[in-house]
């Protein structure tokens, strides 16, 4: 039963996460934190932090770890399989058909309309993280961390892994 739940939790992001790996982040959060309650929002933030600090695709790292946390090695296999297989199998079997769809107006409409939905989901999670940081770490520390990491990422183009490390070190020393 738990395997079926894991399958559902990762199958939905796997088939609806348009726009590559990052678009599955809010869809996974929806299932794992909101729906099934397997982790807290803070734990999910830790998963994202490490996921962003390590190389490789984010969707499979999330699936592998969360599946493992919930139900061991088989849980991890089910979660990763549900993330990867549906779209990969479609690609292998329907390559010819997909090739015809790719440039069409309909497909363009689809991606254009889905992106704002993913955006608002991501934005709300970001907002949740900020508000929980305000209560956990206080407004001053939170603001410093927010502004510093924004400048590092956006203005100075510092590698995300280093920005995560900055957050870890700052937290270890000052929080």
């Amino acid at each position, binding site marked *: 039963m738990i395997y079926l739940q894991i399958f559902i939790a990762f199958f*939905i*992001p796997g*088939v*609806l*996460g348009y*726009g*590559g*790996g990052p678009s599955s982040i809010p*869809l996974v959060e929806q299932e794992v934190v909101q729906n099934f309650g397997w982790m807290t929002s803070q734990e999910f*933030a830790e998963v994202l932090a*490490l996921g962003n600090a*390590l190389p*490789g*695709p*984010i*969707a*499979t*790292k999330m699936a*592998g*770890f969360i599946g493992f946390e919930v139900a061991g090695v088989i849980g991890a296999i089910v979660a*990763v399989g549900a*993330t*990867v297989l549906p*779209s*990969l199998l*479609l690609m292998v079997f329907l390559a010819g058909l*997909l090739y015809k769809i*790719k*440039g069409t107006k309909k*497909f363009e*409409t*689809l991606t*254009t*309309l889905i992106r*704002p*939905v993913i*955006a608002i*989901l*991501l*934005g709300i999670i*970001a907002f949740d*993280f*900020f508000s929980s*940081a305000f209560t956990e*770490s206080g407004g001053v520390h939170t603001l410093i*961390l*927010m502004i510093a*990491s*924004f400048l590092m*990422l*956006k203005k100075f183009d510092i*590698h995300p892994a280093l*920005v*995560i490390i*900055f*957050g*870890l*070190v700052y*937290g*270890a020393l000052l929080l």
Partner: protein
Amino acid sequence: MQLKIFWVFFKVGMLGYGGGPASIPLVHKEVVDTYQWMTDDEFQDSLAIGNVLPGPIITKLAGYIGYLQSGWLGLVNAVFAAILPTIILMIVLLKLFTEFKDLEWVQGMSNGVVPVVGVMLFLLTYEFLEKAQAKTTWRFIILFTLGAFILLYVIGLHPAIVILAIVIFSLVRREGRI
């Protein structure tokens, strides 16, 4: 052959920073330039097909190229090589982290990282909006996003329902604006 496939996608998985889309040039370099499994055109086609589908792009590319090279075994091999090493790293490091969570400074690390991840998600939010806007106008996108917000958080619809509705709407409607 299997060894080469493994090696190529192992490198892609371990060296591709910044998520799937960032590792596409790496795949291109190995598959088109180094091993010449595909021409540039074939690679672009595979990428385009992959982008029509949802889900992570790197596993689709790896699996598809592995499959074209040596069938189902190649598919499984390529996907595993691309994702397994980082999944194992992820599990080991996070387990280690939870192990020491009672220590005050480890708890501090956990707290310190939350706003940083928040900023990363905020930047992703903007990126998604900007990409959508490029195909239409900010006015439309802001109104549409507001509508999505109401459906998701005021009415409380599951995101899957909203996205499915968009998929169906886009595929059945007649060609038109936006």
